[in-house]
């Protein structure tokens, strides 16, 4: 019954212009769901960070402050938007669009209850990886076009960080692809009778940390490291263009939580509750871990961030590929707990081995 309501994939063929109907329903549906969930998650994060700091978050606007983000949207929608005189006007306007749209598009292939949200691409993972690399382009265009020293320096750093963390992000998914034997996300979710986090702990470890760096959240938030370069790349943006960058950051956080939930925590599968509720629960769990890390950990310096990606995560990702590959190639019918244990041993062994080089504080992280 759930399939019929959520995924009238069957209606696509019967109804005369079912294709267009399907497109209309789900395109508007994805954008609406994403925007409302962004508003809710902004409020959720401010309340959660408030609880971490032993204070109440926003609770005056509406019951429990739920309308706080709505007020933010209304205010920033009607804020004057300033265009710097010596900025590169066209790129200045284009940057938020390039940064925001790929993040929304990534949701099209996320599987919910049996079928993908919009289009069940059989190369789902490659599509997501391609889209996730366009956002850094938009951020750099914004930084360069606004003719400001701070934003230029900050966007240079941001691009190097995003570029460096894409490689471990992509390589960490190869293990998952090997275990499922297909690129489509739907297959991956169905293949997860045992959630991949147990089978692929290294993959999850690298994916989660690399995605933290992709959305430039706490230990790696060079993006708007306001203690260093004032407000990062979006200094000159005000009003709706700044809000679009702000939206991009939160949409990326939600999309990457969805990916972590889908690829490693078993997507929409779950015993009692309907599938959509399971997916939302897992997304909220991953998002609150991200907020928890943001509220506690200090920020790493740019050269440590880069060193961490190139010298720590990349070798670990290659080792993970070799280990999982050898299992799948030589011993396909190995029991799943055996694969999981081997992976865990690899992860812990690698960390202990490498940490001999990084004595606490003796040698800075990243410099071997």
């Amino acid at each position, binding site marked *: 019954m759930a399939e019929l309501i959520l995924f009238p994939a069957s209606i696509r063929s019967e109804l005369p212009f079912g294709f267009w109907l399907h497109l209309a329903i789900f395109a508007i549906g994805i954008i609406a769901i994403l925007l409302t969930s962004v508003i809710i998650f902004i409020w959720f994060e401010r309340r959660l*960070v408030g609880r*971490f*700091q*032993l*204070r109440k978050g926003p609770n005056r606007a509406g019951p429990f402050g739920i309308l706080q983000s709505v007020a933010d949207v209304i205010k920033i929608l009607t804020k004057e938007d300033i265009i710097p005189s010596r900025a590169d006007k066209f790129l200045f306007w284009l940057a938020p669009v390039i940064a925001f749209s790929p993040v929304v598009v990534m949701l099209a292939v996320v599987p919910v209850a049996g079928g993908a949200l919009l289009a069940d691409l059989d190369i789902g993972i490659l599509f997501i990886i391609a889209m996730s690399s366009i956002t850094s382009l938009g951020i750099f265009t914004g930084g360069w076009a606004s003719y400001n*020293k*701070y934003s230029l*320096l900050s966007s240079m*750093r941001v691009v190097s960080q995003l570029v460096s963390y894409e490689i471990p992000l992509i390589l960490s998914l190869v293990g998952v692809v090997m275990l499922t034997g297909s690129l489509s996300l739907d297959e991956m979710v169905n293949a997860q009778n045992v959630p991949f986090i147990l089978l692929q702990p290294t993959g999850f470890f690298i994916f989660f940390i690399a995605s933290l760096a992709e959305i430039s959240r*706490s*230990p790696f*938030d060079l993006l708007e*490291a*306001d*203690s*260093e*370069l*004032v407000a990062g790349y979006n200094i000159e943006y005000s009003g709706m263009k700044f809000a679009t960058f702000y939206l991009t950051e939160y949409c990326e956080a939600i999309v990457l939580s969805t990916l972590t939930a889908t690829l490693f925590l078993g997507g929409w599968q779950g015993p009692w509750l309907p599938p959509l509720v399971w997916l939302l629960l897992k997304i909220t769990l991953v998002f609150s871990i991200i907020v928890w890390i*943001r*509220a*506690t*950990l*200090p*920020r*790493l*310096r*740019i*050269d*440590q961030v880069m060193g961490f990606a190139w010298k720590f995560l990349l070798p670990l990702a290659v080792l993970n590929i070799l280990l999982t590959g050898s299992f799948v190639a030589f011993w396909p019918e190995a029991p799943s707990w055996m694969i999981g244990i081997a992976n865990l041993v690899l992860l812990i062994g690698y960390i202990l081995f490498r940490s001999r080089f*990084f004595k*606490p*504080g*003796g040698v*800075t*992280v990243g410099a071997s």
Partner: protein
Amino acid sequence: MAHSTDSVFINLGPVHPSTHGVFRMRAHIDGEVITDIEPVFGYLHRGIEKLAEGKSYRQVIPLTDRLDYVASMNNNLAYCMAVEKLAGIEVPERAVYIRVIMAELQRIISHLLGIGSFFNDMGTFFTPFFYMFIQKEKITDLLEMVSGQRLLFNYMRFGGVSHDLPDPFLPALSQFLREMPAEIDKYERLLKENEIVLARSRNVGVLSREMAINSSISGPVLRASGVNWDIRKADPYSCYDRFDFDVPTGSNGDCYDRYRVRIEELRQSLRILEQAVSKLPKGKVINPVPLRFKPPVGEAYSHIEGNKGELGFYIVSDGSDKPYRMHVRAPSLLNLSALREMLIGWKLADAIIIFGSIDICLGEVDR
């Protein structure tokens, strides 16, 4: 101004989120590394020393509150001791003990704020800052109980203190002393062995022992470089020689050592407070001095161990009821004289951390 093609001239200006107020640095940056830096002062220069020459001795006390607005008890103490030394005024025993209690409570507040903003610059998004702020609010309640003000107290007078301790003060203080050590251990658990804190602050912004002494640096920054120089031990004033406490010193003078020295000093202040509360004598709290009193002609310099360093007042009197000249030895300004040696060669992110670890207060730098 010929500068190489790709070195950018940038200024971390007065309106900057992490410069602890209105401090400005003009920096030449080559890629990520700072090649040269020039601090610019004066954005909070209110001319306190000129104003003091127009006010009577008693009216200058509220002015000294606003010098280092996080350590107003210590400023009052140093100024009153200088005038008492000039005019030879005796301070009753109980007032001496009360003054030590207030000075140590103020030192705890100032160190908590210094450590909190140090971790804010490191990017922990206010969480340790707000945890330390809860303890600061408890001390602020204690000081408000005594002086009626939350930040700038105007509490000390020549010859003692303005009011005696109200009844609920001592039980509240001993309650605070009971729970504070556990709080300090809580900060330590999060921050002491934190891998990122170590990576960001170990061996960063090293200040050598000779450069520290030569640049007349004082306070936790000097002690972090391994120099065992604390006015409370070297030249004990009021009744510090009756308490036993030790002076924490660092080993290699980097940001991490400055943070460690400040955390240890919190614990030493608690030790002093416990001993002061246990030995608090009875008696009157002030030898009253006439409102418009005229000290004898002459000059006097007296210094105390403020929370940023050696805080000294040099007062010259020409016999009238207004000070002829009042000079404030501002530890924050002098702690910055080695700033260039500490910053050049480091990255921008380190420069913000190193500047935060010196922990200056702009009211004292610009006076």
